[in-house]
């Protein structure tokens, strides 16, 4: 079983790679984790991970710049139904459009726009940076066994934009930051997390383990 973490020039994938390897070890699953920019690796993988840091438009351009990658992703995830995890901007790319600096189309797998977080309290700092708990809107296998809610485990967020999903059912969890901020979106075999599981210690490793065991 192969996990493909897609490398399209958006930041360092070293810690994501190591976190997935550790989650594999700790969950006793038999998975090889591969950081790759080859479309054929994505097609051959059993699980597909799309990370992303920086601006939406930059990430979209980076993804488009890898020949055949968007097509391979579409084939692997949309047609063959492989489990997919988007992380941070990799999750935002699931939206229809990104509105950061300029309007740029996303993958369109989760209808909605990526727009600035607007806390009700204007004194709240942007970016939403640091550790926050998750409020679950609907159960999802990636959250199995993870303590959520006010007394739950924490996830590490750092972002100024969020995915506003058109369909409320696509939102699995939110974080409270002067109002709900989208934390996890999901539809069918696709899940996206706004926070960084690879930087979220206990919660992060548990979520990665759940994703790797997930058979949608």
């Amino acid at each position: 079983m192969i996990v493909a973490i897609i490398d399209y020039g958006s930041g360092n994938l070293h810690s994501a790679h190591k976190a997935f390897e550790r989650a594999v070890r700790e969950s006793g699953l038999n998975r090889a984790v591969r950081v790759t920019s080859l479309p054929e690796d994505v097609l051959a993988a059993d699980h597909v991970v799309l990370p992303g840091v920086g601006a939406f438009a930059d990430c979209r351009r980076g993804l488009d710049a890898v020949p055949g990658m968007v097509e391979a992703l579409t084939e692997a995830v949309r047609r063959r139904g492989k489990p997919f995890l988007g992380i941070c901007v990799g999750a935002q790319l699931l939206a229809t459009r990104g509105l950061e600096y300029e309007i740029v189309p996303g993958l369109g797998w989760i209808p909605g726009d990526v727009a600035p977080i607007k806390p009700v309290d204007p004194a709240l700092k942007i970016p939403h940076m640091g550790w926050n708990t998750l409020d679950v809107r609907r159960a999802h296998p990636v959250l199995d066994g993870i303590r959520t809610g006010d007394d739950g485990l924490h996830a590490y967020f750092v972002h100024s934009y969020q995915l506003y999903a058109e369909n409320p059912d696509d939102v699995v969890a939110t974080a409270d930051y002067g109002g709900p901020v989208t934390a996890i979106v999901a539809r069918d075999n696709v899940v996206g997390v706004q926070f960084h599981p690879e930087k979220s210690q206990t919660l992060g490793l548990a979520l990665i383990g759940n994703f790797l065991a997930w058979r949608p």
Partner: protein
Amino acid sequence: MLKARVIPCLDVKDGRVVKGVNFVNLRDAGDPVESAVAYDKAGADELCFLDITASHEARGILLDVVRRTAEVCFMPLTVGGGVRTVDDIRNLLLAGADKASINSAAVADRQFVRRAAEKFGSQCVVVAIDAKRVSGAGEPLRWEIFTHGGRRPTGIDAVAFAREVAELGAGEILLTSMDRDGSKIGFDIELTRTIADATPIPVIASGGVGNLDHLVDGVAKGHASAVLAASIFHFGEYTIRQAKARMAQAGIPVRMD
């Protein structure tokens, strides 16, 4: 609810951890990777490496430390010291740092902040501001930016500078009071609050922590989003858990995972 962060800072010189007292009399306190792992386990919210290696040639040693740390630590890592170019930032991020902290280079050329944020995103651009109180008794409070470990005045107003770098795309400010650094008498609360209230981005308070109430004050009175300390943690005076327990007792939300 978002939690206030507690961030231990490790001064690193030639690949080893040191802690300067007012930037002199450095003491060796061990291997940075081991220290990072210990802080990861102890519940630190982030970790900060400040490279104080004098020569730029020794850069490879730091990058190696960052790389080895990122392999074993699943928590956010900020690295500062000697970050002068977009390539310096790229190398740190590729080695596994999550954020790069820019200090003198931002003072010398503010547009560097904009270039860095455009290239890598605001989320990984921290501007480190070293400020010293320059107003006399009875005058309105004023702080000036100092560089070179607090030795060189720049004439730049710290509050105006903080606003400006936030505008240019900095994602966070690491604010150190050069009057308080190493003093153990607490943060410069007026400085912290003035800058935290004047900028829309998170401020990390630094410089002067001697006990746990100082950490409480940094958030409660200084309005900081995070508090950074070194020696009180490095030499075992207090644990991260004790720090968070005291903050929680004072009504500050903290992460106790």
